[in-house]
């Protein structure tokens, strides 16, 4: 399947959940990542169940924060 991931068209074999996609993208700590699927921000609890389908647009980014 082909999806648009962070602005780039990428191809994967077979179906994937969001959690599996993040793993393939070397995201070590998915709990610290926000994911937008077709314009909707996903609840982190759904990463393991939410399927990514052919033609989907996925964006992910790391939590950004800090302190002094």
């Amino acid at each position, binding site marked *: 399947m082909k999806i648009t991931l962070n*602005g780039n068209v990428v191809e994967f074999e077979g179906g994937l959940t969001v959690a599996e996609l993040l793993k393939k993208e070397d995201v070590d700590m998915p709990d*610290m990542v*926000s994911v937008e699927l077709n314009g909707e*921000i996903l609840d982190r609890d759904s990463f393991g169940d939410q399927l990514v389908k052919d033609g989907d647009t996925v964006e992910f*980014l790391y*939590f*950004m*924060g800090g*302190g*002094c």
Partner: protein
Amino acid sequence: MIVKLDQRLYEKMLAQAKEEFPNECCGLVAGESGEDIIEVKEVFPMTNLDASAEHFSMDPKEQFAVVKEIRCLGYDLLGNYHSHPFTPSRPSYEDKRLAYDEGAIYFILSLKKRDEPVLNAFKIKGRSEVTKLEVKIVEGGEFNE
């Protein structure tokens, strides 16, 4: 590795830091990465959801919108910046603990001495190993290595 930052963009960050003082301000940094030089092309002030003098966190919805804007401009997301209203320009324990993106550049603007602000840029590996980058603030894009 040298980070080239236009004076205008530095002033933009500084103005935001002063305006949001005593709270920390934050924002995203976009530009172009070369082999030896990273050139900052734009900075994007963001909302500090914490509205705190001691910590900051960005709003993911706002982050997604700005990241798409950065892409439309043809730039890369280089990293982020935040201010330290009362402490030096170095990654705090909290900054390191929350540095999940090893590819990002973390700019820290200290207002500890209000008349002598200090800006530094860092890479943070493994949420502990800090490397300071050289920042060159240039006037109107002029830059000599």
